[in-house]
């Protein structure tokens, strides 16, 4: 340890005085482009935990980009939501669907150089299925057990048929962790020094500040283009915009659309957008006055979704009529709900309501949680007023929304956004509209009877057709109001080629110099 001498104090004082000027010199300031070979991403959320399989962060879709940089999912997912080989090269059921068969690739290694083994796969699946393990998706993983290993092939007994099992293997908590390393260092040791088999290994982590990754030289998918990737955790959108303008980061996303349009017009920056698997919707709770079908349908027909997208979201959104967005497995373009205020008026008139004698209820919304959420609800309330619906807006925090939804205590109408990165109807219509689900606001038996049999349906074509029929029924009955599919704005420096993902992930391994 060196002592602080008079000379060093003078040096420091001189240096401090020169600091603002020194930083203005070319090549020394944060304003200049990141070092060659380094990709810096201004990321919108903090990384609470490194274990991608347990706790709240494991089911937070916005963190998955980081997890998928360090860890490999069992099964990969292409930009269009389709599935592709990941650590598993083959997967499927046997003929009578009593077993699953998985084949592990042979050339994958952990970041410490040791090979990824079938034992790692079985340990990860067994750990995920453990009731006491803390995996939030345990209810899926526990439906398979009694694994057996033969070479690089793993078989497991289906304890209860889960049609979406392999889709989950590409998403939340569907990651393979290193058995030997984890058992050696324990949970806390793993948090401090995690290793995975993904394209990047953890190099440095400053909580709430940044995560620095280095390319994994032995990655089975080939070495990524950037040797170093830095995720800067900048949760405030204004700060992310400033970070791009200052040149401190190479890429950011989830910024206001107005800022996106402004930034993409600036020299040195480029912007791209892509509809992602996240939709805006209004939950309908089956309480008075929403027990009246005419009111529900009128509320839906009175909303001009295109006008909302065009005027409030600057065109960055895709109006939808069901909870299935284009690209989802059960998307049915033939199901449409027209914007028809006259129809809305006539429906309300059948129930004795009019603009002079409106039906009254409360609509809940967040304010600032999603782009223009409150403004959107204000616009909708204005549209409703014209046809005979007098809605009172109640603003709440997202935490309150979750609490109320779990208690089935939401207002008759409640704005929310629903993500579905695997594009399966069970994870959109299924969980959002099936009465026993804690995420469902419409608890009616009609949907319980229709969705219930689809959970364990082994015939995939029949299952998808079943969900399409349910979506059609929901639309005809007006039991939910889907609004639009979100579009993700990405701003990056010119000279980068970014592959936008339909699931909204920003994967550094797919970003290359143009």
């Amino acid at each position, binding site marked *: *340890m*060196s*002592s*602080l001498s008079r000379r*060093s104090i003078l040096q420091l004082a001189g*240096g*401090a005085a020169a600091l*603002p000027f020194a*930083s*203005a010199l070319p090549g020394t*300031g*944060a*304003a200049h482009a990141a*070092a060659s070979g*380094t990709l*810096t991403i*201004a990321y919108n959320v*903090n990384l*609470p935990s490194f*274990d991608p399989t*347990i*706790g*709240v962060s494991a*089911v937070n879709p916005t963190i998955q980009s980081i997890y998928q940089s360090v860890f490999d999912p069992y099964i990969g997912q292409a930009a269009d939501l389709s599935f592709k080989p990941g650590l598993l090269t083959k997967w499927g059921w046997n003929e009578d669907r009593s077993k699953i068969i998985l084949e592990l690739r042979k050339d994958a290694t952990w970041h410490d150089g040791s090979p990824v083994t079938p034992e790692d796969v079985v340990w990860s699946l067994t750990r995920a299925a453990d*009731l006491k393990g*803390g995996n*939030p998706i*345990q*209810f*899926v993983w526990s439906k398979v057990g009694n694994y057996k290993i033969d070479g690089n092939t793993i078989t497991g007994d289906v304890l209860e048929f889960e049609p979406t099992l392999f889709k989950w293997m590409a998403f939340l908590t569907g990651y393979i962790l290193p058995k030997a390393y984890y058992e050696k260092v324990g949970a806390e040791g793993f*948090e401090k020094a995690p290793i995975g088999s993904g394209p990047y290994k953890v190099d*440095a982590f*400053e*909580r*709430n*500040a*940044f995560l620095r990754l280095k390319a994994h030289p032995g990655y089975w998918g080939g070495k990524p283009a950037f040797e170093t990737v830095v995720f*800067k955790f*900048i*949760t*405030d959108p*204004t*700060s992310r915009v*400033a*970070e791009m*303008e200052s*040149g*401190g980061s190479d890429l950011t996303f989830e910024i206001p659309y107005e800022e996106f349009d402004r930034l993409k017009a600036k020299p040195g920056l480029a912007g791209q957008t892509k509809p992602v698997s996240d939709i805006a919707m209004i939950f309908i709770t089956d309480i008075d006055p929403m027990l009246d079908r005419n009111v529900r349908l009128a509320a839906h027909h009175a909303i001009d979704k295109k006008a909302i997208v065009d005027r409030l979201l600057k065109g960055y959104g895709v109006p939808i009529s069901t909870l299935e967005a284009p690209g989802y497995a059960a998307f049915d373009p033939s199901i449409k709900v027209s914007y028809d205020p006259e129809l809305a008026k006539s429906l309300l008139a059948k129930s004795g309501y009019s603009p002079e004698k409106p039906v009254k209820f409360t609509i809940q919304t967040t304010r600032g949680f999603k782009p223009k959420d409150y403004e959107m609800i204000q616009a909708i309330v204005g549209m409703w007023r014209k046809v005979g619906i007098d809605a009172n807006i109640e603003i709440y*925090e997202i*935490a*309150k929304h*979750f*609490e109320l939804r*779990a208690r089935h205590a939401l207002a008759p109408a409640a704005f929310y956004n629903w993500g579905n990165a695997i594009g399966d109807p069970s*994870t959109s219509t*299924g*969980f959002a509209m099936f009465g026993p*689900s*804690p*995420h469902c606001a419409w608890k009616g038996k009609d949907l319980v009877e229709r969705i219930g049999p689809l959970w364990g349906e082994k015939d995939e074509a029949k299952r998808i057709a079943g969900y399409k029929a349910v979506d059609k029924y929901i639309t005809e009955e007006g039991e939910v109001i889907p609004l639009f599919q979100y579009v993700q704005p990405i701003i990056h420096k010119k000279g980068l080629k970014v592959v936008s993902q339909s699931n909204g992930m920003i994967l550094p391994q797919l970003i290359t110099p143009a």
Partner: protein
Amino acid sequence: MRWGEIIRRLVLVPPTLFGVAVIVFVLLRVVPGDPIAMMIPPGASEADIARLRALYGLDQPILQQFSTWLGQVASGDFGKSISVHQGVLELLLERLPATIELALLATLIAVVLGVLTALAGILLRGRRAEWAVDGGIGVLLAIPDFLWALILLLVFGVLLPWLPISGRVDPQIDVHLHSNFYLLESLLTGRFAIAFALLHHMILPALALALPFAALVARILKASLTEAEDQDYAQIARARGYSRPDILLHEVLPNALIPTVALGGVQVTLLLGGTVLVERIFSYEGIGNMAIDAVINRDFPLIQGLVLTFAVLFIALNLAIDLIVTVLDPRLRHG
């Protein structure tokens, strides 16, 4: 302040902290937002929800939850964070030094700026330029710290991109220090490159926190200086032929400092509160930034730990300020 007073204040610390603990514990459970509701996975059954609630001890009556938590805190265990999966105490010890260093730097900047502005104001007393000083102080005071943060971010991060606007240190630098007091340790161990990098990142958030504080210091000190300068001892010194700057620095300033330290000290506690938003805007990794995440995630154990930490800091600061005022004011020192 006499020893008896100090002991009395110290004796009051545990009941004060107990009161804070009761308020935060009850409030968290009364206000809307259930941490379990936020982590319910799709497809979870009632049994799954009940299991999660039991896992975090939230299935117990509030009184029992409180007594369990209090017992743990008394033994140095602040519980485990729901969102971060780490011990709350470990997290606080990891992040608190960053906030303390930022607050110290902000206080230093505020005191230097405030004192210089007040001295400039008093030297210009009666002239038109005094209005400019008073006007400047008014502007600095009128704009809250978080707005200063945004202004500084836009000016020095975007328009004149001179300084970094996020984080505590450059991600390309390997810090490798023993403590989490990065700035202090790097200065004390002569690792000036790291110290510069840290100062480089801290200067804007510190300035945002410092500007309103500096204005307050300037306003109080200028008023005290004006009052003290009219006192007999100052007039006598002037009659003896001492120069005005001499009188101001050696006679007037020591007396004028007492009310400034007393009132300015209160502002230090407010400055600590201000770190929450300013740290967020500059993505600075202190406990303020962590507090926002804790609230968003309804991470009860972490929020409780953070509030207790802030309470301890406030109490310690107030005590320290009282002691400083006692040292400065012989009337208090000698009863």
